[in-house]
């Protein structure tokens, strides 16, 4: 492969795959809220109308 192609291959992998890995790591830093009270049943609505 030519140098230019190899450079762009690496740049593409680093930016896109690196971006994906960074996004996953960022998401994992904020853990999911435990969802005992997250249901959206009728109980969760204040009925005033």
């Amino acid at each position, binding site marked *: 492969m030519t140098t230019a192609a190899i450079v762009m291959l690496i740049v593409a992998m680093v930016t896109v795959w690196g971006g994906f890995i960074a996004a996953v790591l960022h998401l994992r830093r904020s853990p999911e809220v435990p969802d005992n009270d997250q249901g959206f049943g009728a109980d*969760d609505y*204040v009925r005033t109308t």
Partner: protein
Amino acid sequence: MTQQAPPGAPAQRAPREAFSSRTVFILAAIGSAVGLGNIWRFPYIAYENGGGAFLIPYLVALLTAGLPLLMLEYGIGHRFRASAPLAFRRLHPKTEWIGWWQMGISFVIAVYYAVILGYAMLYTTFSFSKAWGDDPGTFFLSDVLKTSEEVTVGLEFVPSVLLATSIAWLALLVVLLLGVQNGIGKVNLVLIPLLVLMFLVIVVIALTLPGATDGLNAFFTPNWTALTDSSVWVAAYGQIFFSLSVGFGIMITYSSYLKPKTDLASSGLVVGFGNSSFEILAGIGVFAALGFMAGVAGVGVDEVATSGIGLAFIAFPTIISEAPFGTLIGVLFFATLTFAGFTSLVSIVEVVVAAAQDKLGLRRRTAVLGVVVPMALISLALFTTTTGLNLLDVTDNFVNQFGIVAAALVSVMLLTAGFSALPTLRDHLNSVSSFTLGRTWMVMVGGVTPIVLGYILINTLTTTLAEGYGGMPTWFVNTFGWGTAIGLVIIALLLSRLPWPASSAASDLSPSPAILDAHVDRHRMRGDQPLARWSDTALRTPALGQDFSYRTVEEGADASPGRHAAEPAAPDTPGAPAPGTTAGTGATAPWTSGAAGTTDPARTEEDPR
């Protein structure tokens, strides 16, 4: 909390279905975004538009249009927790038709998309025997599809395609019947990791083929002068836009199945970059294989590079016939195509199912059967015939160019300028996300994307009007191309005028109030046109615990009477409270009771009714 149901609401409705976790949602969203376009469209688009240099417009498009649009749709779906038509209706009753337009687009895409799945499934089995022989092109058109010379619509079915497509619809029916978590969620939980794994094997084999480096050279060698060409930038925005499957209700529907506290913006980043990561992987695999094919044929890579149906069903069979481990490559390639397409098809049909379910107040099982069976029959009748391929081609082009692009353009313009919804949606996203979106996000969504989408739309509109489409007969293009594109808008407008039955999901209270404009909706705010007609837009649930933006609404009630402010209501007008008073507004202007409830929950209880 009172348990009194609003008038006309069904006594009990099962709670809205939900994905069991954020991870399942993200996999489902990636499964929706990663489709045939990632495998057979991206590699060629990148190669055609500057090779390695395409990465720059591509990343710019991802950051300035793709991710902001993705987050916008997450915001709408998650805030209003409904299918596309009901979510838009809850946002503002006058935007409901956009949701129906998106549903119509999904309907049309699904009926032809399933047929391509049928082809991919057939070719998975052909890979064992390399049934295409020496001439895959003729084999595909004449032996498999038995394509008719005439461009028309006929009823001469091709049994093998009919059978394969029926199997695809049957599998889809089963998955959707199983529900959001057990069907859609679990299918993506299995298929997406499998898809990546299988494609990695393809890439490894392809890279060991002689000539693979020539293909990668062609794919990655940057042509920097391409960056000065505006068409390259348009191609980048188009690729990002179509690839992320934004603009036709999928992400609204999926995010409505998320739990109230879900990190939306960060999930969007994972989905957006995940989709692009698979595209890069596909580019490497496809061009390594094309490099081998060019080497065998003794021609340059430019002579074999192609996209779409030609790449999958004509170029790849050639590679499979000649490469070592050909059968393995073939089975893996067509199986990945099938899986990628299937997870996308699931999400597309779910848009229609959810809309029908909300509108008619059906149970999921009834809605799935009532939607999928007719769709399957239409799909089989129109596209598995000898004349199906041309119809598929025309419908695909028009529903993409003048359906998805136009609907996305209209929706971002209305959400930005028409209904000023972006600040509220921004605040909603920020209330649950681990990083905040600010003015930049609003400029991207409300400024950059309308310009880009408008340019793409006008561009293709003028070209298609001047040159027709693909040399096909005018009547055919008019009926199935323009007819579909324009018909979808008319049907959407008509559907939005149909009243919602009392048993529909519109009778349930919305988790969030409608987004009202201080000026445009001043009559509604003053109670002259009470929102009670739209009981679904009345209240938000305290379960969200979010600090929503009531800025606009409060402006309308308290603003000093300037040029654009609402006129103060006459004190003797019945049902119109004086500005600034909150007592009694719960009855006539329910959205303020939601706002008041944030600071003083007791107030709603004291509501004298």
